[in-house]
């Protein structure tokens, strides 16, 4: 049974701070068979590679309001209770379509994503780069039964969105 230590870096991120050192010091204090449960205001994609090198697998789950809960598990064991939503995001295929919508006039980015998403086969995904979080797009995706994952890139200059057609 893996025990998870909670690390909530959302207050640090909201205050514009850099949570990396906090996460690393929490990591150093872990006992064997302990993992980290990280809460962040975005999907911490760059951290996944770092943690993998340190021997941790990750499963992530979107929380309400664009926030994320990530379980980092020592690699030789698997999480005992994989979060239901997290497992649903496993095995997403590579995107069938890639869009760069960063320089389109609004609301063209949204129109193009919806047009391309409607052409996807069952379970296929598309990925799109945007200038900002497409808040008006999400309800439209939801109404059409699509699932999505999104977050700002680590340098904060683009929003990366992956949309998956219902399978």
């Amino acid at each position, binding site marked *: 049974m893996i025990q998870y230590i909670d690390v909530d870096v959302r207050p640090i991120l*909201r205050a*514009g701070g850099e949570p990396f050192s906090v996460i690393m010091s929490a990591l150093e204090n872990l006992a064997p068979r302990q993992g980290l449960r990280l809460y962040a205001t975005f999907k911490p994609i760059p951290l996944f590679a770092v943690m993998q090198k340190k021997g941790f697998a990750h499963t992530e789950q*979107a929380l*309400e*309001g*664009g926030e994320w809960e990530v379980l980092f598990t020592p690699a030789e064991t698997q999480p005992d209770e994989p979060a239901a939503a997290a497992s649903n995001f496993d095995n997403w295929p590579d995107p069938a379509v890639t869009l760069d919508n960063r*320089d389109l*006039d*609004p*609301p063209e980015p*949204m*129109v*193009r*994503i*919806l*047009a*391309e*998403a*409607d052409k996807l086969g069952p379970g296929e995904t598309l990925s799109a780069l945007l*200038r*900002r*979080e*497409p*808040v*008006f*797009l*999400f*309800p*439209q995706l*939801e*109404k059409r039964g699509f699932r999505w994952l999104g977050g700002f890139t680590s340098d904060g200059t683009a929003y990366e969105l992956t949309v998956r057609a219902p399978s």
Partner: protein
Amino acid sequence: MIGTNISRWTMTYFAAALAWLFVALGLLVAGVGYPAGDIASPDTLVLVHVICVGWLSLAMCGALFQFVPVLVAKPLFSDKWALPALALLTVGLLSLLGGFLCLGGRLPPALWLLPLGAIVLVAGFGLVVLDLGLTAWLRPTGPARFVLVGLASLCATIAFGAIFAFALAGWAGSVGGVVLASGIPLHAVAGLGGWLTLTAMGVSYRLLAMFMLAPDVDDRQSGVTLAVGALAVAFAVAGGALAVGLAAGLQIVLSIAAVLGIASAALYGRDVAGIFSNRKRRHLELNMRMATLSFASLAGVALLGIALVAFDAFLANVGAFAFLAIFGWLSGLVLAKLYKIVAFLTWLETYGPVMGRAPTPRVQDLVAEDRATKWFVIYYAAVWAGTAALLGGEPAALRVAAAAMTVCVAGIVHEIVRIRRLADVARPLRLPVGVVAPHLLFARK
């Protein structure tokens, strides 16, 4: 759910706000209140509250119900409070105006209308503040912080207003009388400066960046603008209240607040200039071109204030100063942004369900900018002429300017109704299969 739905009652707020704007312009044309009457007369109170509560506050609330969720990328705390709040604000304002008319002898004496109106307005604004505040509080970064400070200023404004209403009805004892005698500038600073101006600034940061494809203003940079503006309002209100309590003059407090206010306006000008120069979209739409006339008016307000103080003529010309702030800066900006917001929301509501599945028009296909431009340009010209008329002490010229403003607002409203009715969308694209035409006054579920 993540993301932002269309706010159901934003159009209703806009319609109610525009109706009050016509009432206000009608009063100006008819010569009711300042400058024909005294600036402190009950008739002027009717005029000022029709403009600030009926027109500007309702329009601002309608816009915030839609855009605070956009600022924080979370749904509104409660969808169900917007319509009851509008009903309370309307009834409260009518009661307050009735009380002012009694005060001026235009209605039989029923001064209880004033406290009643105040209580109902407090309830209505209370619902708005709670709903928007609890939403913005979820992610208090960037422009959402302006909204929070604006809402706090709104609370200060209505607190003063409620004390005045009770005092005017004779229900507030000697303390109420003291506050009424010297607190009116604080009520005005908190309302016009804190609530309306800081909130308009905050929302404009995101709207301007969004519609011009510009990077967001750095949080720390806009934070300085906000801090200086908030300090100006807080200093005026808290320092002013202390001065009233100590029976000292307000002169020094208001002078310092004015310096801070001008500094905040200058910093805001720097931020907006940055958004314009960093924009990726070179072509400016009508709403942006017209917004620049509002920014020019705000600069004019600051310069006029400095000039009037330098020549020791501020108190004699406070009406002209307020007129330019209300109609040039705030009303002009709200009208220009309404034109864009209504088009965008109507487009999203109407064509969102079929987007990508059927050919749909662009947002710009809903508007006829060439036709609308003249109304906006003449409107601003009339506002500036009206300001000059007030400065020159020509009430008749002001009524002519107000008549021109009324015609232009009617022209703009006509354009907005045409947008809502999809009247300018070419036939084959107008109503593809699966699309329902929007209702004029609210968004369908």
